[in-house]
């Protein structure tokens, strides 16, 4: 029984990503979409928080959103995977529930 969490706000604008990471369980997945993809960047104030979770939680960015914002793959934190829209659908189908962190 696992949850897919989506985060669509920049971690520098709201506490949504931090709250999501504080409430998700081992084995869950977090998908960063829209401005949420900035949470996947390395070298930021939240990078450590995100990196700490990559061992127990699968973390993804929606590639269309990260590419739209010019985030090169090598600028993303180690262990974060890019997914396309089909991959997004698969993630939804593979988890028991989806929780949006608005």
């Amino acid at each position, binding site marked *: *029984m696992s*949850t897919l969490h989506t985060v669509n706000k920049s971690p520098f604008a709201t*506490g*949504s990503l931090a*709250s999501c990471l*504080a*409430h*998700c*369980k081992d084995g869950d997945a977090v998908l960063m979409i829209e401005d949420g993809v900035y949470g996947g960047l390395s070298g930021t104030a939240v990078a450590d928080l995100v990196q700490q979770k990559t061992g127990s939680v699968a973390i993804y960015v929606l590639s269309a959103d990260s590419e739209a914002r010019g985030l090169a793959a090598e600028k993303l934190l180690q262990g974060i995977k890019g997914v396309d829209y089909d991959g997004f659908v698969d993630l939804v189908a593979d988890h028991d*529930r*989806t*929780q*949006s*962190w*608005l």
Partner: protein
Amino acid sequence: MSEIKKFLYVNRKAPYGTIYALESLEVVLIGAAFEQDVSLAFLDDGVFQLTKGQSTDGIGIKNFSPTYRALGDYEVTKLYVEQESLDERGLTLDDLQAVVYEDEDDDWEEKPSIRVVNRAEMADLMADQDVVLSF
């Protein structure tokens, strides 16, 4: 009758700056007609929705805080409030309005609807749902 599902409404926004809190409350009231197993979660700025003493006369917006006290009549009786979110905002349970329901299984005794839980318990609650609706 179809299977009863566990629904959690997650409230993370303060009440008047955006429409989320009011929209959540309206969806909860509408959803109550479907007789599901409903819980509400209040965390982050969502805890501000339940504070006492709201008075919106000066901002021209309806004060919907009394409506939380009517939820018991719709058999919505589980309002989970996160302790850490209260602490971060300098709030205690005393700063929140009393919300109660009458327990039909216990001679209609009046009982508190607000249940304060810690962050780990909130995470468990979220993981235990069939459907999570976020506001």
